[in-house]
Structures are given as C-alpha cells and as structure tokens.
C-alpha cells in the first residue's frame, strides 16, 4: 500500500469514526446505535438483501460487536485506535451494504416539504415487513436507528410509524413492521428528531394476496393420515405460525407449567423448536414466500424439514411421510410415558391427548392426576380399565402423582383402580404404595434422575422393603443415576422408567420407557405386566438391546457357582439426529466395558464379551449419543445362591448414606413438632400434618433402620461364603 493510499484510508477511518461515534465519545463507551442497527438488519431485515449481502451483514455485525467489546476493554490509546479502526472499517462496510440495497427509501428533510423517494407504494412480504430509510437532515454525521411498529395495535392512530433520527446529518433507520394488514395500508412515517418538530410522510404499503397450504402427514406404518407435531416457519421473518388445527392444550393444563399447545421438546437442535400437535390434515392461508415445514413424530421417526413456496392466490399441497428409522414394536418393545399431566373430563379432552401421544408415537401414557397435601389438579373422569381411552395401539391410562411433598419426594402410581390419597396419612407413603399394589398397580418415584424434592428420604424408607416398583431416571433429557445406583448397590430391584412431566416438560414422549412384550399383543395390561417385571429401558434418543446369556433387563439370572456369562449389547440411533454413539456396560455402578461407533459410520455400537458371575451383581447397559441424548436399561440381576447381588465392598458407605437420609427425616419431624408445640403452625397445614403424623413416620424410620441393621447381619453371614467364592 503506497503512502497516499494509506493516508487516504486513515482519513476515511478517522472521518467515519468521528461521525459515527461522536455520541460514543460523549458516553465514554462504544456507540450502541450502529451495533443495534447492524444486529437488526442482519437478523430481522435480512430479506431486504441479497444472499451475498446477508452473509456480509452477519460478518459485519460480528466484527462490529467484537471491535466494540475490544474498545470497551482497551487499556491504552493504541488499543483504542485499533478498535476504532476496526469499527470504522466495519461501519464503512455496513454503509456500503445499505447504500447498495435496492429497497432503500430516501427521506429528504432538507427541502421545505419533506420528501420520500422513490414515490409510490412499498410491497411488504406479508404479516411482517421491513422499511429501510436513509433520512437526510442536512449537515455532517451518520447515525443509525432501529425500531419496531406493530400495526395490529390501535392506540388511536394505527398507521403512525415513529422513526427516530438525528437532528443533523444522515440517519439510516431500520423499521420492523408487525401485524401488517392485508392488501393496501397507508402509513404515516413520523420522523422524530430531538428538539425539532416531527416530520410526517405518507407511505402506502401493500401485501400480496395470501396463498394456501394444504398439509397432510402420513403414518409410515399405514400410509394413512396421522396426527403429528408440526411447525410452520416463514423464512422471511423466522417466526412460526400456529397450524390452523393446532390443538390448544392450555385448558387441560389447569394453568400449570407451560400451559400452552405450542411445545418445545427438551431435545437437541431443531427438535427443540416450537411445534403444535395437529390431529390431521389442515388447509390454511399463509403469506406468500418460502416456508419451512417441520414434522416430528417421536424418537422412532426421522424428523422432516421441507421448504415450500407459497404463491399468491394459489393452493400448495404437501403430503409428508416421516420415515421410521426403527420400529421397536416389531422387536417387542412398546413405548410409554409414565408422567403426563392433563385434565381429562370429556371425550374431547381425551381425543386431544390421544392425538398428542399418536403424534409423538407413544403407545401408553400414564395420565396422572396430581395431588398435594391441600388439593388435587389435572382431574380425571375415573380410574381403572373402564376409564382407559384406547385408539388402536395407543392408550391413555389414568394414574396419579401423589403423594408429593418437597420434604420427602414425589411419587407416581400406574394402573390404579382408584386414586389413593389421605391427607391425614400424607407423609406415610408406604400406605399409598400398599394400596396401589393391592389394586394391582405399580408405584414409583418421580424425579429420581435429579434427586428433586429430597426423594432420597422416602426412598430410604420404602425401597429396601420392596414397596416400590420403579424410578424415573430420565427426565428433561437428563439421565441421572446416582440415587438409582445407590439403591441397586444395596441389592434392591428397581425398574428404570422415564416421564416427560408435561406441562413442565416439553412434549410427551421426549423421554420414554420401553417395555418388552415379546410376542404378546399390545394392550395396557400386557404393558404393565412387562413393566412390572422390569423389562424396560428408558431413552431420549438411542435404542438399546441388552442380554446376559438369555436374560433380559429386569430378569434375575441365578448361578450356583461362578461361571462365565455372555454379555451382548447394542446401542444405535437415528443417523439423521446423531453422528456418534457410546455404549457402556455398567456393573455395580462401574463401567466394565465400552464401545463407540466408528468415524464416518452409522451411530451404532455393539459389545459381545464374557464376564465372570463371581458373587453376583447388577449389570446394565447405557448409551450416550453425540447429540446429548441418552438411554439406560433396567439391570439384569446376577444372583449367586445365598447371596444378595449388592455391592458388598461399598456396603458401609451405602448404609451411611441411608442412615443420613433417615436422620434427615427425624430432624424434619422434630422441627415440625417443635414449631407445633410453640403454636407456630396454625397457618401451615402441611407442617402441622407432618407434626401430627410424626409418630407414625418415625415408626417407619425405626423399621427402616431395623431393615438396614438386618442387611448388615446378612453381610456378616455372607462374608464366609463370599470368601469361599472368591478363592
């Protein structure tokens, strides 16, 4: 670069810096106008620009922001100058892009009457649109502004569009218009400058005639129309619109959680976008332009994303058929969600939720009426087989999430014939577990993956006595096994389960439990029977197969003497969702073997090896996919004659944890009693009831302590045999 060119460039940089950032100098920090403007045009107004300039705008935005940050952290003049040079160069590029935009409107405020050029109407793409204005107030300086006007609101004068401009120089203004009416609308651009009267200019905007979309989603199993999770995103503004028949679940959510029909799954990438459940085909008007249709049908299907062009006045028909990448039911595995909250008081209510589980391809949903010590939520018509709602291979079964306390955990029950709830015995969870079992139902704990609500306390009371069947180890796409492993290590059998917990969770089936029915036909009874045997795995993405010899998850494999066992496992996933898969075999909480999918191959990992049965153990398979989803089986229990399958070496540490949990329950009762004795619980019914039920709860603590003492004695008795076995 020769000297004259360099000096010319420097002069340009200095000029731009001094004009664009004159305000910055006053504020002692970089100018926010240009940053905000660049960000807005790059993200909200990008349709005004060519593809090439869109990319350039993104780069300019990043460069401006990085340089502004550098300016803020500059420690000396040299650094500030370098930052200013970067900012000036990027601002220069920004101005060049603006000037080259064919849709730039010129507002001349230097004449006697303000003028807008080119004259005529401005065509907007549809629901929203953008105006890019160059406002010339005369004099030096360049400023930027960005604003939004929602034309659907009528604050007396709906067509007024305020635009901020500098009193002197040129202001580039980006205006985002929302709620734009159809056809022709006359706006008044209201240019507001500090200490000056505003200048108003009429501008007529038009929108093209809408088109129509007819969308049908077909089942890959039957080829017939099916419910599906659908998103419609207009590429012009990046916003989504509700499909015309999208189900609004809000009334069934009792104003709890995210009480809306639009659902964002706790799943990776585009699966986390907002989707609506549509029960079937729909036909709706849409603004013309490029639309992205997204269709999701649960973990066993590939998600479909297709761009369509909607043309003015024309009907566009699309039929999409999300392809199955796996059909677990054909392998005997049927999906369920153990934790779905929704009010079902009518057939319409039931049809809505049925459409949802069919859309997500979940075969069984445990629809839980929720309770606390005060009241219940998500009411149901009733419980038991006559209140199940079945449609083909899909069934809604009323269950309960109650008792639930923040002090000792939340519980779930499935396949019940009546709700079990008694506030006078609310903290005595065992009474509920016993009643549920007497009804032929299954009991479990919610949120065990995260350990929420001190669930370890009641687990310490009731898991060792085998009153509980299952635990949620996967929720919100978080696999959590700490508590699960602690109780398995004590030799307690527990079935692995998963539940979405909608409306707090994203969508039904985002995590799910598969139960193995083998050749049996699917129905709720067979599913619960398989689940009750522990023949399950949970997943938010990967699929799992796991055998030890011929045993399946939940099975007990008895061995008379130490012998080799053959372990076979497979984890695989949707190649469209994940690029890698890691499979691990866990014995007593430790990974004893793992395998990963190879570079450039399908996301699948397999293991086939032998392991010595030794003195018995629990052994399970788990998988983690590269996209952050995971899966875990219920263990297979290897039981040596006369020995528990527990983690014998860690027994003292495990029992110490349980003792600490029991002490916490005791302290809880003591505190409640003290407060009650002091008369401080008259407005706290929950704690009052805890104080009242304290004696009975402490009896449970004592019984649990006896049980743990019994386990210690068992360990002492096993000691000799274990020594023999290991010799």
């Amino acid at each position, binding site marked *: 670069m020769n000297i004259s060119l360099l000096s010319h460039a420097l002069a340009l940089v200095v000029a731009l810096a001094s004009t664009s950032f004159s305000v910055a100098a006053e504020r002692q920090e970089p100018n926010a106008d240009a940053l905000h403007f660049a960000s807005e045009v790059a993200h909200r107004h990008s349709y005004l620009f060519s593809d090439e300039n869109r990319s350039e705008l993104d780069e300019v935005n990043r460069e401006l922001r990085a340089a502004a*940050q550098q300016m803020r952290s500059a420690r000396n003049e040299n650094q500030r100058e370098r930052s200013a040079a970067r900012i000036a160069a990027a601002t220069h590029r920004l101005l060049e892009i603006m000037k080259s935009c064919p849709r730039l409107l010129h507002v001349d405020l230097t004449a006697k009457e303000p003028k807008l050029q080119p004259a005529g109407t401005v065509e907007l793409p549809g629901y929203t649109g953008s105006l890019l204005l160059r406002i010339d107030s005369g004099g030096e300086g360049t400023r930027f502004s960005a604003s939004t006007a*929602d034309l659907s609101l009528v604050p007396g004068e709906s067509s007024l569009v305020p635009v901020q401009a500098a009193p002197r120089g040129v202001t580039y203004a980006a205006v985002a218009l929302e709620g734009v009416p159809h056809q022709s609308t006359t706006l008044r651009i209201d240019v507001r400058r500090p200490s000056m009267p505003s200048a108003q200019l009429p501008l007529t905007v038009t929108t093209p005639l809408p088109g129509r979309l007819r969308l049908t989603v077909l089942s890959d199993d039957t080829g017939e129309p099916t419910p599906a999770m659908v998103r419609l995103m207009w590429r012009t503004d990046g916003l989504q619109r509700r499909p015309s028949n999208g189900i609004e679940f809000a009334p069934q959510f009792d104003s709890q959680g995210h009480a809306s029909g639009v659902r964002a799954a706790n799943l990776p990438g585009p699966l986390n976008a907002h989707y609506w459940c549509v029960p079937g085909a729909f036909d709706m008007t849409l603004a013309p332009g490029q639309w992205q249709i997204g269709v999701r049908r649960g973990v066993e299907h590939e998600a479909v994303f297709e761009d369509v062009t909607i043309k003015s006045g024309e009907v566009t028909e699309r039929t999409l058929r999300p392809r199955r990448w796996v059909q677990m039911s054909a392998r005997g595995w049927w999906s369920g969600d153990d934790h779905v909250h929704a009010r079902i008081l009518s057939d319409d209510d039931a049809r809505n939720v049925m459409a949802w589980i069919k859309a997500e391809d979940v075969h069984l949903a445990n629809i839980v009426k929720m309770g606390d010590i005060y009241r219940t939520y998500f009411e149901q018509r009733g419980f038991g087989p006559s209140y199940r709602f079945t449609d083909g291979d899909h069934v809604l079964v009323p269950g309960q999430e109650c008792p639930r306390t923040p002090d000792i955990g939340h519980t779930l029950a499935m396949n019940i014939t009546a709700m079990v709830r008694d506030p006078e015995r609310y903290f005595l969870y065992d009474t509920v577990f016993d009643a549920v079992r007497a009804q032929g139902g299954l009991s479990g704990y919610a949120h065990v993956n995260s350990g929420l609500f001190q669930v370890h306390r009641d687990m310490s009371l009731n898991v060792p006595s085998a009153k509980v069947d299952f635990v949620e180890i996967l929720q919100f796409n978080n696999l959590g096994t700490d508590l699960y492993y602690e109780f398995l290590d004590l030799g307690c059998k527990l079935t692995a389960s998963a539940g979405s917990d909608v409306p707090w969770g994203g969508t039904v089936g985002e995590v799910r439990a598969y139960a193995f029915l083998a050749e049996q036909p699917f129905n709720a009874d067979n599913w619960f029977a398989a689940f009750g045997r522990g023949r399950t795995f949970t997943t938010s993405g990967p699929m799992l197969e796991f055998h030890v010899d011929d045993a399946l998850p939940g099975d007990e494999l008895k061995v008379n003497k130490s012998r080799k066992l053959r372990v076979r496992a497979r984890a695989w996933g949707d190649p469209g969702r994940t690029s890698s898969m890691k499979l691990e075999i866990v014995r007593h909480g430790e990974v004893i073997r793992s395998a990963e999918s190879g570079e450039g191959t399908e996301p699948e990992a397999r293991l086939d090896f032998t392991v010595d049965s030794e003195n018995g153990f629990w052994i399970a398979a788990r998988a983690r996919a*590269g996209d952050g989803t995971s899966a875990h089986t219920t263990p297979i229990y290897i039981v040596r004659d006369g020995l528990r399958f527990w983690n014998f070496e860690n027994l003292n540490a495990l029992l110490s944890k349980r003792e600490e949990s029991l002490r916490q329950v005791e302290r809880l009762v003591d505190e409640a009693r003290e407060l009650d004795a002091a008369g401080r619980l008259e407005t706290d019914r929950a704690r009052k009831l805890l104080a009242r039920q304290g004696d009975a709860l402490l009896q449970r603590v004592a019984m649990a302590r006896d049980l743990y003492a019994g386990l210690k004695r068992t360990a002492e008795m096993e000691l000799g045999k274990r020594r023999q076995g290991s010799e």
Partner: protein
Amino acid sequence: MKTPPSECPCPGFILPPNRLRRKTTLSLSRLLLTLALWMILVANNAGAHDVLAAFIQHRVGIVISPKYVDVTVQLTFFEEASEHERAHMDTNRDGILTRAETDAYLREIASELETAVKLRVKDVEVALTPLRNSELDLLGAARTGRGHHRLTAYYFAPAPAQLDEGASFVVEDRLWSDVRAIASMQAEGKDGYRLQALPSLDPVYPAGLKNRPRVFSAKVLAIPARSPSAVTPLSTSTSGLKTVSETNPEQK
C-alpha cells in the same frame, strides 16, 4: 406477543442507565427473588407447583464451525421466577407487559447477560461477544402473574486456530445463579467438526451458587480433515452460521 410500539422505539438513542444503579437494582432484584423463594421453601407452602415451579431451566447450546464458536444460553423461567421477573418488567404496574417494558427490561439486564457467561477452550478463557440483542419470549402471555417465559442470549467468539480432537469447551453460566436450575447442554459441530456434550455432573443445581458458575462442557470428537487456520472475519464466507430463523423460532 402483541404489544404496542415502544414509546421510544430506538434503543440506540437512549442513554444507557447508570451501570452502578442497574447492578444495584439487579442485585436487589435477585436478593428479593432469593428471599421470596426461600420463604416459599421455609414456609413449606406446598401449593400447586411445589418447588419445581421455582426452578429455572438452563439450556446451553454450543456450535463450532471453522470460523466461530457460537454459544446460546436459553433460560426458561418456571412459575415462581417468571412471576417475579414479570412483576419487575411491569414498571407501570398495570399488569400488562408492553414491548416498551420488555425492551427496557432487556436493556436493564444486558450488561449482566454480557458478563455472566464465560467460555473456556482447552482451559483458556476466550472472550465471548454478544452476537445480538437478547430476546424475551413471554410464551403467549404478555401479562404479570404466574407463567413461564424464555430468555435467550446469543454470544460468539472466533474459533481457536488450533483445535485438536479431545479439546474441551466449557461454558460457565452465572445467570440467576442463586436460583435452582435444571440444566442441559447441546453441542454441535459444523463443516467437519464433531462435538459431544458431556453429561453434567449435577443436572439439578442447588440454590446458593452465587458467584459460582454452572458448568457446561463439551469435547471435540473430530476436526475437519484440514483444520482451517484463523481467518479475518470480514474476508470469507459464512457457511455454517445459523440464521435467525434457525436459532430463534419465536412463536407468533
């Protein structure tokens, strides 16, 4: 969200409020929220939502392309925290949340959003820059009271010149660190990069983490065949960058 136009629709023309006052206001806000949640817990007011309603869900996304590392932090405020923040947004106390109010709220928390998220690559801190203004989605309920809402903050950094397989990316998130959190992370590699999100040691964070970050980690599984060297941002194409429509599916 249907809200009237901002009273002053050009944030760039508004002088930022005094930073000290803003921080004080925020600290006070956090303190009040913490106190409110603590009182709920202590009072054992096991209402409809129990304590799950008091959580904030933190979802951290990281996308690595040859030129940039893009970090997105999305917070979904459950009932208790959402109610508190909504009340804070409603400056005129009319129960309706206007765009002017939500814009002002975003401006108020902007500096905290900018400084509360850090990135470390291979154990070395890399400066994160806000990619654009943060976004607030009231999830269809532009009013005060209980609900859920979602706050999304976007950041980026230049991609490190040398990235090896196994290199670690750690996002430290100090946003609303004194409120219990349910946490998850997503990691994505582009143009030859493959990433894996590492499971969090503790998916549910306890309260009282003031000044201690929630940590989200990912590691590089594979790099492009020819690892690109650092490039000048303005001089090359932008393939692999997410567009607004891909990253911000705001509901209408």
